[in-house]
């Protein structure tokens, strides 16, 4: 199997963008990608609650309705099942719907249509009809939001055959991956880490260049340990890697970006160097993506491992209200603890 990573393309794009454009945020990059898609493909329609005049609760669609009109950028009635369901019908007739859920915590009424219809249409019609849909949703905790606004339940969706689950962790990757998701012939759940919507700015040229889906990005090279993280957790994971580096330990940091289908090869390649691995995610641990990644690593690379795969995750609890959300979210210290557990592990328990 070919080992294809998005790393090279990501680096090339980052080199170009430093020259050409003003720095933008992750949410700004989402907006830029949507505008590019709307401008270049008349089949693209964008819809959701409050996305028109208001530009979305996070301003991801700011100005799009003004630019592209009320037939391309539509405010819908308040009904998530409907938003998920009409996308299916639109897509079967050749449109490329981009549907926004205001928060991932509100996506569940739409799950029936994502699971039972969008991801099955191509299969059940043996290719006659298909659903090139992008379902967008801001996800994750850390913005002091009310209940049901901070969930990170990506594993519910990675279990669904026929779906792609994509999570960007930088403005450049948000732009390139969202364009790829819109152009993809199959349904994509595009989860936007809202905690880092405005955490950093980066120049992202509006050149229409997509980044590859189904490919992991190596964000930092190292030979002592592999840290795997996506979305907002990439921020703390890179911070932990920097701290380890100060101690003389070089961690490789991998962002899978497409959680389903997962590019395990980039991870295994990294393990050939490092032999130790920590998976970081803010979702609950049980049955989470960390479990899937750990299982695949032991299937494909058991002999490479010098230590069990460590998981640094949210607790198997309800995501707490915001006074306690930082207790729940894995921070730099917990990632360092996980890293040390992997680094200090000795067979037979002798330290």
């Amino acid at each position: 199997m070919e080992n294809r990573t998005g790393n090279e393309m990501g680096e090339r794009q980052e080199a170009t963008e430093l020259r050409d454009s003003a720095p933008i945020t992750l949410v700004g990059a989402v907006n830029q990608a949507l505008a590019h898609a709307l401008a270049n493909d008349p089949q693209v329609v964008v819809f959701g609650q409050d996305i028109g005049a208001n530009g979305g609760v996070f301003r991801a669609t700011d100005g799009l309705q003004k630019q592209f009109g009320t037939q391309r950028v539509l405010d819908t009635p308040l009904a998530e099942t409907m938003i998920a369901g009409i996308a299916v019908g639109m897509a079967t007739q050749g449109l490329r719907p981009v549907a926004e859920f205001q928060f991932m915590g509100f996506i569940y009424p739409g799950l029936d249509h994502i699971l039972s219809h969008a991801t099955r249409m191509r299969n059940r019609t043996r290719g006659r009809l298909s659903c090139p849909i992008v379902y967008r949703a801001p996800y994750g905790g850390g913005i002091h939001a009310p209940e049901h606004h901070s969930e990170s339940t990506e594993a519910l969706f990675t279990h669904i055959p026929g779906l792609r689950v994509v999570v960007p962790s930088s403005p450049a990757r948000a732009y390139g991956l969202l364009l790829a998701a819109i152009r993809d012939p199959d349904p994509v759940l595009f989860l936007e880490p809202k905690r880092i919507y405005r955490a950093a700015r980066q120049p992202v040229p509006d050149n229409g260049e997509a980044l590859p889906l189904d490919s992991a990005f190596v964000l930092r090279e190292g030979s002592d340990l592999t840290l795997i993280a996506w979305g907002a957790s990439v921020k703390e994971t890179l911070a932990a890697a920097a701290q380890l580096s100060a101690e003389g330990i070089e961690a490789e940091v991998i962002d899978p970006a497409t959680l389903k289908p997962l590019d395990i090869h980039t991870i295994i390649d990294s393990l050939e160097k490092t032999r130790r691995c920590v998976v970081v995610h803010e979702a609950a641990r049980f049955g989470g993506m960390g479990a899937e990644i750990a299982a695949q690593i032991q299937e494909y690379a058991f002999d490479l491992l010098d230590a069990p795969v460590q998981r640094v995750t949210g607790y198997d609890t309800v995501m707490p209200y915001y006074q306690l959300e930082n207790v729940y979210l894995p921070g730099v210290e917990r990632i360092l603890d996980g890293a040390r557990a992997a680094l200090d592990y000795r067979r037979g328990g002798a330290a």
Partner: protein
Amino acid sequence: MHKPRLQLQASFDIAWLQYLDKQGRATQPLPEFASPDWLTHCYRQMQLARLVDDRAVKLQRTGRLGTYPSSLGQEAIGVATGNALMAEDVYCPYYRETGAFLERGVRIEEILANWSGDERGQNYQHAPRDLPICIPIATQMLHAAGVAFALKYRHQQQGSPLQVAIASAGEGATSKGDFYEAMNLAGVWKLPLVFVVNNNQWAISVPRVAQTGSQTIAQKAIAAGIPALQVDGNDILAVAWAVRDALQRARSGEGPALIEAISYRLCDHTTADDASRYRSAEELEQAWQWEPLKRLDTYLRSENLWSDGKQQDLDRELAQVMETALNDWESRTPEPATAIFDHLYAQLPESLYEQYDQLRDEQLREKLWEKEGAVQ
């Protein structure tokens, strides 16, 4: 307690349409489209739908088909709906619509393939834009709203004639949120969308009166700002008039409509159901008195458009049609097992190559084993 003076803010009526009474007598002048040819065509298609359903149930009983939902007793609704649609319109059906499928150009062998567990059965060669049969309840109504949006969008972008989507469902589906959400959107976006509710009185074992406190199903549309009408669903003329009128209005940009077609499910819910557990023989006996085929047959004979001789000719013709379809269905080559991966994504992701290869190898081993077995 003092009772305040209240003023009337809104009121509504639900109309009822029937051309042929339960005995098959015309109650008013027939619509212009009801030519002798049209009437006999519809009668033929209703007969064919009944024959296909009857044969499918028998095939299920002998283990050659999986669970099958017959449309026995509702043939008029399906045939009238399918007949009224233009080829370019999009039909978004629920599962109990044999008559409509046949009118849309779906082949009998495709229907049989689908219910015998072959997914190619929904790859309709002659209804390329229609949605596949929808098994979950009412979800197809939202898909139809999306389809209708796409049709309106194409009309506005390209200036092409406005096409219409039709969603069908049973009355049980009108209890679901999807139904209300679809109607609400269709009303506010003025979508070219017609909802046809087959009110066959029973949602599996739950009767109409235990399904909703609403006096009619039709009035559920009023809240969404959608015009609605009740028709005698066993009178094909009434259903056809209502569907044609709604399509015409939708085509001219006037938006959606809901038709409640009152009928009766003469069969079990599916072949896995036994309706005698929850409804009386007397009720079923009564319902047979106003079923759609007999009613049209009586009318056609009263107008000298039908006779025993014509019926015998039709029976022979349809038996032949069925025979050919059964042969075509039985002579289908089975799909390769790897087809379960072939249409999951447009292109198989690399991470699935291993599972694909595993299945292919298992199949090869099995074939080899069969071959060796045959040699012995």
